[in-house]
């Protein structure tokens, strides 16, 4: 499952759009200060793109733009074939159901239990209660939190909340996942667990993802590990180039995209800023 290349292959199945997220020259400013200035990139199907940048460089803004939660000042954004930047809120809910988002602060509904949160989409779709319960437990097992079903978010630790948020995002197996700093402020052990989850999501379910992170190490782990279904954990990639794993990097600086490419290209970059960032 790790052999296909990130670049589009001719002759593959006539899948729906190969490009899941497309940013075309997107700009947005807050209080006359540009936050994104002419940013363009493409997220291929099955690819994970790690977004880097210092605090306040507009990473969260990119994810919110992709969901259509905010609109750009100029430029166009396509997600799964829908131009979200030009679609009315009322018509966006359809495409949003195919996207999972993990918010930076988890954003769990604090008056609903973990089951209510994780199963929110299923409750909305009026699935039978037993089926919802089953799928909620399954999703929670994925994040190793099945014992928390009846707890309220306030009764969970920060890391547990983050994992519940991940379960909520993945329960309907969305085609695109947006992770906003899923490991932010967590200990190394929990961080590794979460990264393992993302690798699993990428390799087992072939989801496309935008991953915002402050920890370079997380993205490098994603780039050189693959998920082994037999062992049920991620294992380092041996032999072939790490970039085979559909993980690419994008670096933002001063409202502009200054780098986009594979792990190897990032390490080899001559840009002073990136060198400093990597050190």
């Amino acid at each position, binding site marked *: 499952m790790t052999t296909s290349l990130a670049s589009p292959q001719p002759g593959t199945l006539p899948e729906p759009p190969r490009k899941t997220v497309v940013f075309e020259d997107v700009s947005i400013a807050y209080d006359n200060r540009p936050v994104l200035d002419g940013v363009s990139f493409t997220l291929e199907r099955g690819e994970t793109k790690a977004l880097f940048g210092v605090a306040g460089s507009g990473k969260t803004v990119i994810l919110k733009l992709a969901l259509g939660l905010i609109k750009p000042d100029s430029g166009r954004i396509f997600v799964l074939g829908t131009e979200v930047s030009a679609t009315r*809120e*009322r018509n966006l809910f359809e495409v949003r159901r195919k996207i999972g988002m993990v918010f930076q602060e988890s954003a769990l*509904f604090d008056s609903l239990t973990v089951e209510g949160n994780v199963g929110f*989409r299923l409750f*909305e779709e009026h699935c039978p209660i037993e089926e919802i319960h089953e799928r909620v437990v399954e999703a929670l097992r994925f994040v190793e939190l099945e014992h928390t079903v009846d707890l309220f978010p306030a009764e969970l630790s920060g890391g547990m909340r983050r994992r519940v948020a991940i379960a909520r995002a993945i329960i309907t197996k969305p085609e695109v996942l947006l992770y906003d700093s899923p490991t932010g402020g967590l200990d190394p052990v929990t961080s590794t667990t979460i990264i393992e989850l993302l690798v699993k999501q990428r390799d087992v379910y072939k989801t496309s993802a935008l991953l915002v992170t402050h920890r370079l190490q997380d993205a490098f782990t994603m780039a050189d590990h693959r998920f082994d279904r037999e062992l049920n954990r991620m294992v380092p990639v041996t032999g072939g180039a790490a970039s085979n794993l559909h993980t690419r990097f994008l670096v933002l600086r001063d409202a502009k995209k200054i780098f986009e490419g594979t792990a190897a290209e990032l390490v080899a970059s001559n840009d002073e800023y990136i060198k400093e960032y990597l050190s």
Partner: protein
Amino acid sequence: MRLFSPIEWAKESVMAVQDYSLLAWRSLTNLFRHPRYWADILQQADLIGVGSLPIVVLTGFFTGAVLALQSANSLARFGALSFTGQLVSLSMVRELGPVLTGLMVAGRNASGMASELGSMKVTEQIDAMRALGTDPSKKLVTPRVVSSVVMLFFLTIISDLVGLAGGSMVSTLMLRLDLNQYWTSAWQSLAFEDVFMGLIKPVFFGFIIATIGCHYGLRAKGGTQGVGRATTQAVVAASVIILVVNFFITRFLMAFFPMQ
């Protein structure tokens, strides 16, 4: 600190009014669109209706009682004490029942909605809901509007009745009026237009309470302090708008049903 700029302020006010109009309009059109949230409507109805019952009963009762006291005082000067029932019932049904119930429920529920939705807004739960593919105007606003309108309608009827009862207690126990006479005069004085006016008002007031409460909640920004601000503003705005709209409804209906 930024300087106060009248243009900026005007722009923001226009935006706010536009936002509000859109929200109010959507809360109504959502009624004709799927999905509809019956469970949320019932839950809100319980919160607004049952929860407000005690204060509505108390305010209604004492308003009716004090109306009887005051009107008896004035009427006695003209030797028209027997009109007490009529004065209490007309004032209660046409004005004080709807307005006081509206103000009480505004204080209780417009603030509740603003703080609940405001907290959800500042903790990104509203964004999370949109991200999950659920329209907050359908899931949060419309159920609140529907249950406010329906519940305020019935609360107003209860308030009117309890007010009349309060008036009757004062009239018979303190003023030594005849109970039968009180109720007959109270009942017979009510014409169709009085009841109509008294029952159309809560429909508007309920709509104002819910839409204003949700509007301020959904616009909250700036953390917990922002939520507090939104809550206060919602109660003030809802109360003032209720009083203003009350004047115009009364004026309009009076023109519609001229005095016989």
